[in-house]
């Protein structure tokens, strides 16, 4: 099916197969479509066997970091006598990304199944699903799905009649981008301000409630039941370019594009074909100017870079950016890049948790300078100052929000410098530089 656009023939609909199909949202409907067979199979295996299958599939985290899922799960040591927890990251807030929203909206049971399976695989009896508060419809669908799963004995003290306890608990966020950062999310679940934690200790050692914890993205968990049913080899075979990038991936596409929406392709798909064929290219009479391929935190690509990219973890890095969360933001020739980068900086300034000085001050200063350049009040020195601030914001803080703000600014100035310079009409009087001169 596909939603809001019908599936394109070049897509590989695994997770998105039932997007737009209202019947798939109920337990009955989901079972008719093969639902819960992955969990059933998993519960007949040992957790170690499941972890091996997921490792062999090559599945990597779909939230942004791309860490191999099976390896992450293997960090959870069985038999340590501690309660283990699974946290599902459904705090989807990265600008440009809206894939988890559609997974929960159309196929909530796919995620419930993935959570139950993941929990069992890491030796956890409890999975918290942290859903951002703005996602009212996905929240309602997920709550309904969890209720149905309890009523049917899929969740609870005797999951699918196996005697194993699996609880899935929906936890509603309250408006904070930073809670998508895994340690901030754990603090938020504990009832604290969503401040990220210093690592180590890593979550697998001391996570939520100071117990061993694994955090996985919605899309990652939703993919696992398919791997259990169809096998690691099937998943691994889905790869068009780098063997390190396997499986299908949802890409959310927004901005100045003919057909915005979610598209699922095999990793390694040519980005040029994706933009112009699947997504329909630019709006009539316009041309594309720039693309952010993986959410606003990844470097901006010129069209030359974008059109040469393969859509996988390695392919986007080769072309100066990153796969990130798969949130594709398209800018056309009507957009002023300075204005849009200033808006992105404002986003990060708003969302900084304020713990680290480099981020709290850096995002605010970056925004002020970007906005004054946008408003025609900038100086040439401002560009150097932006680079200097960005340098201080990179790899100096507890989490990467600070780095994420620096990224669009630096890549924007490097790749679209002429747009910045066009707004800086003449050097302004500056008392210090004037005195030196």
């Amino acid at each position: 099916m596909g939603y809001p656009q019908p599936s394109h023939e070049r897509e590989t609909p695994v997770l998105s197969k039932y997007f737009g199909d209202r019947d798939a949202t109920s337990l009955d409907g989901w079972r008719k479509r093969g639902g819960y067979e992955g969990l059933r199979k998993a519960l007949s295996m040992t957790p170690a066997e499941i972890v091996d299958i997921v490792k062999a599939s090559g599945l990597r985290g779909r939230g942004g970091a791309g860490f191999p899922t099976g390896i992450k799960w293997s960090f959870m040591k069985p038999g340590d006598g501690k309660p283990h927890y699974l946290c599902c990251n459904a705090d989807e807030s990265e600008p440009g990304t809206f894939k988890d929203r559609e997974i929960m909206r159309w196929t909530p049971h796919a995620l419930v199944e993935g959570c139950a399976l993941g929990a069992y695989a890491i030796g956890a009896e409890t999975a918290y699903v942290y859903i951002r508060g703005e996602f009212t419809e996905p929240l309602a669908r997920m709550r309904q799905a969890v209720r149905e799963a309890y009523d049917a004995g899929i969740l609870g003290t005797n999951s699918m009649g196996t005697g194993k306890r699996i609880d899935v608990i929906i936890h509603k966020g309250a408006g904070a981008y930073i809670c998508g950062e895994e340690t901030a999310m754990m603090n938020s679940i504990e009832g604290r301000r969503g401040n990220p934690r210093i690592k180590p200790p890593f979550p697998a050692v001391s996570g939520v409630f100071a117990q061993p914890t694994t955090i996985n993205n919605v899309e990652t968990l939703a993919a696992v039941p398919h791997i259990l049913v169809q096998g690691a080899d099937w998943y691994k075979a889905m790869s068009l370019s780098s063997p390190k990038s396997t499986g299908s991936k949802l890409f959310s596409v927004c901005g100045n594009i003919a057909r915005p929406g979610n598209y699922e392709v095999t990793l390694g798909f040519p980005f040029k074909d994706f933009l112009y064929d699947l997504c329909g290219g630019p709006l009539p009479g316009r041309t594309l100017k720039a693309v952010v391929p993986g959410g606003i935190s990844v470097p901006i690509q010129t069209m030359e870079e974008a059109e040469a990219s393969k859509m996988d973890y390695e392919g986007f890095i080769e072309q100066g950016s990153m796969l990130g969360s798969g949130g594709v933001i398209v800018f056309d020739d009507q957009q002023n890049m300075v204005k849009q980068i200033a808006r992105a900086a404002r986003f990060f300034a708003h969302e900084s948790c304020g713990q680290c000085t480099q981020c709290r001050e850096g995002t605010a200063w970056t925004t002020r300078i970007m906005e004054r350049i946008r408003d025609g009040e900038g100086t040439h020195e401002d560009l150097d100052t932006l680079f200097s601030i960005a340098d201080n914001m990179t790899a100096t803080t507890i989490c990467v929000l600070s780095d994420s703000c620096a990224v669009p600014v630096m890549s924007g100035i490097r790749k679209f410098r002429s747009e910045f310079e066009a707004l800086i009409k003449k050097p302004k009087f500056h008392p210090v530089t004037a005195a030196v001169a």
Partner: protein
Amino acid sequence: MTAAIHEHETPYQPVFVGDRRKELDALFPLYPTKMACILPALWMVQEDRGWVSDAAMAEVAQVLELTAAYVKGVVTFYTMYNQHPVGKYLIQVCTTTPCNICGAEDVVSAFMEHTGCTDLGITSADGRFTIIEVECLGACGFATPVMINEDVVESVTAARVPAILAGLK
């Protein structure tokens, strides 16, 4: 003027009594600490009262065995808890980059024009509307998404604004 504005002048009516208390108590076994119930508890307050007052924070602190200062620290971290009364309809327009390039600023202007709101965050004189800009609603492919109370309206353009407002009772 809504009753909530005068809350400080009238005795505070607790939220966590009767069914609400049972609802909160049912959450405790789901978490190893009572503190973990703070976000759900604050949501219950906001559902019932429309915002989270200092008195409500004190009540949440009491039922969860925390201090009022701690609860306030949490409330002020999260943008969705209203720390002041808002209009009958809280209209949140996403203006982050992906929506911005699709004309979100025009949508904000249209809402301001057609509701009589004089500024962002300032409730209209008739008490019906409060408009704020919100950072990324996570529906970028449906630019511009607008959240009106609990509902997200997709693909809003400035031209659609009068019809959307007319649909609000």
